[in-house]
């Protein structure tokens, strides 16, 4: 229904409001400049850079081992997958063989990390839409996973849990049993979250048909990870270009049909189930052996460049590294962060929606500003 407006009769200025960088639901220090027509969003400008720490440039002045701990600080909700992406890229440069046990444990760690990251996402996303309780439930389960990481590497957030060529340490005794228990708990609790949300009428109204994006458009705009799969594109680096030990496990890639916020929610919930499935398979087939390959004392890859991508919880995390073969640091270090690439779709998603949908849409693409700004 179109209402004809007469500018002479009514003052119809657009309202420009500034959302963030200190706003409760912009997930960190994201700033949005919204142009509103009433409550409808005409356009949105995304302003980033408030958390820029120059990690890429910093890495060009550190040696290859030290960079692992800088990668922790990018996506701090999923540090283990960052470690993995970096280490594998350097291994590719070095053409280094990683022991099978290390690859298995890396898979377990990155799937546990995916669980933790998706739980944080679900909690914050639900809280943005007003379901506060889900947040606390999700963080309760995430805590268990953090405990596992703490037992493995001593840290709960910035793990520094991998090394070029393998892992710093083997698994502590009894760890695998605890992982199994926690996988069971998470599987049971996902059912609880679903009871609170999946069939909830308000949740359906808030997420269905909100931020719809077709598969073609999603690919064109560089969407990756769960949001891309929710638009019906079955692109998952774990299946398409298997790394670590993913080629050896059976798991499904959930894809959505409509590409709206609800589909993105369902896809991530299904990914949680698939992750526990992968972890169980990896624990069942965990081979014996060393966890660190034959790595030279001083890592100095031959001159050359490489790009390697993994499937981080938030999407395709790629590292492009150039080595000049002479110095002990990378000549050029560049990250393709999934949050950054997904964030550029946000203005397209929010256009035409209401202010309340903006927070739902920021939540649905699952960004971590540490990774966007680096």
């Amino acid at each position, binding site marked *: 229904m179109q209402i004809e407006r007469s500018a002479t009769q009514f003052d119809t200025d657009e*309202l420009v*409001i500034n959302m963030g960088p200190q*706003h*409760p*639901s912009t997930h960190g220090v994201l700033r949005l400049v919204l142009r509103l027509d009433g*409550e409808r969003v005409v356009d949105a400008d995304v302003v980033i850079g408030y958390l820029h720490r120059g990690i890429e440039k910093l890495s060009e002045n550190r040696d290859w081992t030290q960079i692992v701990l800088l990668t922790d600080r990018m996506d701090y909700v999923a540090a283990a997958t960052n470690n993995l992406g970096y280490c594998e890229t350097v291994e590719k440069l070095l053409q280094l063989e990683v022991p099978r046990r290390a690859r298995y444990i890396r898979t377990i760690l990155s799937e546990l990390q995916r669980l933790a990251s998706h739980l944080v996402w679900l909690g914050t996303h*639900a*809280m*943005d*839409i*007003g*379901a*506060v*309780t889900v947040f*606390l*439930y999700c963080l*309760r389960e995430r805590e268990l996973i953090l405990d596992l990481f703490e037992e493995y590497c001593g840290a709960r957030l910035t793990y520094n849990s991998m090394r070029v060529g393998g892992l710093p340490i083997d698994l502590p005794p009894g760890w695998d049993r605890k992982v199994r228990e926690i996988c069971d708990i998470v599987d049971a609790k996902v059912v609880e979250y679903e009871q*609170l*949300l999946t069939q*909830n009428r*308000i*949740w359906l*109204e*808030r997420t269905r048909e909100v931020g719809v994006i077709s598969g073609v458009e999603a690919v064109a705009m560089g969407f990756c990870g769960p949001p891309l799969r929710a638009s019906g594109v079955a692109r998952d680096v774990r299946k398409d270009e298997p790394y670590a030990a993913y080629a050896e496990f059976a798991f499904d890639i959930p894809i959505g049909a409509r590409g709206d916020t609800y589909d993105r929610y369902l896809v991530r919930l299904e990914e949680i189930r698939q992750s526990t499935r992968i972890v169980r398979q990896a624990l069942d087939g965990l081979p014996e052996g060393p966890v660190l390959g034959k790595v030279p004392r001083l890592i100095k890859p031959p001159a050359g460049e490489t790009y390697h991508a993994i499937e981080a919880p938030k999407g395709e995390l790629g590292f492009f590294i150039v080595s000049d073969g002479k110095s002990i640091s990378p000549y050029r270090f560049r990250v393709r962060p999934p949050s950054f690439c997904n964030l550029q779709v946000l203005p397209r998603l929010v256009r035409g929606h*209401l*202010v*309340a*949908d*903006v*927070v739902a849409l920021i939540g649905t693409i699952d960004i971590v500003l540490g990774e966007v700004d680096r």
Partner: protein
Amino acid sequence: MIDTVIVTLVQIAVLLVGLLAAVAYLVLLERKVQAWVQVRLGPMRVGYHGILQPVADILKLVIKEDITPARADKWIYTLSPIIVLVPALIVFAVIPFGTSVTLLGVTIPLYISDLNVGLLYITAVASLGVYGLILGGWSSNSKYPLLASLRASAQLISYEVAVTMTLVSMILMAGTLSMVGIVEAQRAFQLPFSGRTGLWFIFAQPVAFFIYFVGGLAETNRAPFDLPEAEQELVGGFHTEYSGMRFALFFLAEYANMIVISAVATTLFLGGWLRPFPNVAWLGFLDWVPGWAWFIVKTFAFLWVFLWVRATLPRYRYDQLMRLGWKFLIPLAIANVMVTAALVVLL
């Protein structure tokens, strides 16, 4: 003459003190209930299990700096929290907590006034509060509060229509506008085609109760209709710029309004001070509990559901809220009035 004035003044004093204490502890109750739902403990530090938390909260708010934004309209800015709070308090003048008690030979009614248009008074006074929200949001001279106060006015007015419609059907049932009269009507009410008397109106009017409950959530800006203060979207809502004691007044008013909605629900639907099944003789032992205690228990049970809902449900979006109000609740309420009227005439 002077006696009745003194009695009334004492009544008002007791009611105000009791009400403010109830509000303070309702805040604590909310935090506790929400914490229990969310597998937390809630306030535990101030006093035994946080029992003194309200004192600490109030103290904190009192000693906070009271800031007025530089370009705010100072008069309206100061006035609007008062406009919000006062109606929420004076509504209680007509709420009957019980019949009467005899103290020191004086019979004191447990209500301040039994207006013959009590229900009308409540709807009239309660709807004044919305002015405070609009003025508060507007006079802050800030965009988020302005948006929020626009939301608030639209929401409160649309849901008030539905709620008032349910009140109309209750008036048809009771045949009076007096709050005391409505409770007495429930004692006398006989369900058609059965010998049962003394049924609360909730059993006769479940649809009206449902509409009233949903509308009540919306009118008090409670989840899932807490759009005017949706912190995830509009930071703090219409009171974003308020601080200190003026913020506290808004806060008090919100919880006082919740108590109003619950107290009116108790009076209209849950039989006021009547015990369950007031005319069933073998339940006579329940009369040991005084009427005002029944009233308070019922009111808090209703409040409990408010808190429960908040901890469970996500929030509606603005347009969905309007659609629910205008396209579902109001037609349903009007239909309910028609059916009630027809049945009252026919039976």
